[in-house]
């Protein structure tokens, strides 16, 4: 099934928020690195994905540093608490040097736009997203990373290694192109955090969310 068909089928099924499990599977199909699922070695992350609970940790639906032996029981416990949820067991990223947010939305004035900035807990602390029109070329994405408060973080502060900005720029551009091409079906897409590894080592999309447009059922 093409990404477009998949999105349309979700819209037709009446979904508004597409949970992390499905969102990341879609991103994976686009060639965006996502964590390995159900690995045999730890540490692991166990999450329960449900369209109605996009902010999982607020509901105790994320558990970090889990061993492969313990994972099934934890997943079962979460599933029992939230019926209809889909458990997700993934490799836990340990080598990242920066966490980034990459998001797209439809602006009422300018149409599709893309935002990128320091992610994870820094989203609320710094609120330093750079915004451009989507789709953004890889060059534009590079400029976004070179300006604003985030540039220093990526360069590596106080002896920390520099992050893989090239891989991050590529991801920003890719997501912005995907969003602009599917903006008739998606109103927002957000990857937060993107776990960016040291320069040359790539990155992984640790969490993702897709919000569908509500007026496009066919």
């Amino acid at each position, binding site marked *: 099934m093409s990404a477009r068909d998949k999105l349309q089928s979700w819209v037709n099924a009446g979904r508004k928020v597409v949970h992390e499990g499905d969102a990341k599977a879609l991103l994976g199909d686009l060639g965006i690195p996502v964590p390995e699922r159900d690995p045999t070695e730890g540490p692991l992350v166990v999450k329960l994905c449900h369209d109605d609970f*996009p902010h999982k940790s607020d509901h105790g639906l994320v558990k970090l540093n889990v061993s492969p032996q313990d994972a099934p029981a934890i997943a079962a416990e979460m599933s029992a608490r939230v019926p209809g949820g889909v458990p997700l067991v993934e490799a836990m990223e340990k080598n990242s040097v920066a966490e980034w947010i990459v*998001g*797209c939305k439809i602006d009422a004035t300018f149409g599709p*736009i893309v935002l990128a900035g320091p992610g994870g807990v820094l989203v609320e602390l710094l*609120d330093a*997203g750079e*915004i451009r*029109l989507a789709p953004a070329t890889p060059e*534009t994405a590079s400029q976004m990373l070179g300006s604003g408060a985030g540039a220093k973080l990526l360069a590596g502060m106080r002896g920390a290694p520099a992050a893989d900005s090239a891989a991050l720029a590529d991801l920003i551009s890719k997501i912005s192109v995907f969003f602009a091409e599917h903006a008739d079906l998606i109103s927002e897409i957000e990857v937060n955090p993107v776990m960016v590894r040291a320069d040359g080592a790539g990155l992984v999309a640790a969490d993702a*969310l897709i919000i569908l447009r509500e007026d496009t059922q066919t």
Partner: protein
Amino acid sequence: MTETPPDSPQNTRPSLSDALHTLFDPKNVAVVGASRTKGKLGQALLELLKKNNYRGKVIPVNPSGGEIEGLKVAKSLSEIDEPIDVAVISTPVEIALDALEECARIGVKVVVGVTSGFNEAGEDGTENEARLQRILKTAPFRLIGPNCEGVVRPRSDLQLTFSPMFDGLDDGPVAMISQSGALAGLMALRLGERGVGLSAIVSSGNETDITAADLMEHFGEDPVTRVILCYLEELRDGRRFAEVAKKLTDAGKHVVVVKGGRSGAGTRAVQSHTGAMAGDDRVVSSIFREVGVIRARDSVSAVDATIALATGRKPAGRRVAIISVTGGLGVEMTDMAETEGFEVPVLADKTQKALSEYVPYYGSVTNPVDLTGVVLANPSYVGRCLEAVLDDPGIDIAIAIITFVPNQTFVEALAEAYKKTNKPVLIIWTGASRSAASGDAFRENGVPLYDSPARAASGLAALRGAGEVQ
């Protein structure tokens, strides 16, 4: 140039480009709602057309017929036996809608709708708006407005407005698009007072048909126009506006925008961080920056920015020399220049030596240069000092600060120094009204003139990025 595609096969609407060329240089203008009664918009319109020596034919339209201002009045548009380029409508809305239908029947090329009472009137305007939309669907004409103050084109001596704020303006490098007529009036008057001419002013009103992006694209093709100055409350087609602005700024033109209503950020609940972080106003600022639009915080600073850009001079870098007849103003200007991301570097030895001929030992020749009160007694010195700092290869921009001026030579000498260079120069004259000298030499030569460091800083900030790739 992208044209708005016709809505229907039988549509004979002129292309945007044709329509705007006609609008800015019409062979004739029909004034619907022309009146003899002082205080009526239709009276003011006729008077201003005449007063500004419009060369084409003016046809007043009023059902009572007769003559107004020595012109034969047509009882209706249909009675006019020649093709009409432009009809301006300033009647009450019910009559205006009838007139618009008549314009459609007889094939007027462009209509300027001064009349209010459409969607800007909220619920009261709903029916009128619906009728306007129906007319526009098949109309052969293009529409400016409605709910606007009109159109001014000094190059064609054309004043299609009831507002006297645009009287007697000269042609020049600034085109203005304003969704508020009053803001357009304020900015045009201030530009004119400082010797900056206008290639066109369009009060675009509701932009029901022709939008700011359409107008901006048209002005981008005018070789005289260097700066497009906009006051906008609502970007009707933001995406196209951004794309057109990028095309223009890439081509070396400048777009300065005051975006009103910035406090009206969206209040809907957001499910994602992206939604929360990309608030309406932040998006506007970001996208403007991306496409090279200079966002001014208000109409006055927009004028101050525009004046600096209108000269067409682009700095090679960000190194500023400041010369001042007083230490204090030089210090204030230095602080502001540095806040705006400029450098105020120490001048070259050769420059300092040249300045030392004119500056006494208790002044300063490093930068900012303190000329001291001695120059007041030697009116040509200030011009020579300005020339000296402009000759410094380490300087990209010069700012000269004067207070009260005891002698006309003072002004002339600065204007001469301005003419001898291609580098941007800003003049700050804090005491023009307390000076025994006229500023005409500044105005006639298009010298950017400010009354204070704060306002010059708006001009300086606009030059940042005017010549460099951001």
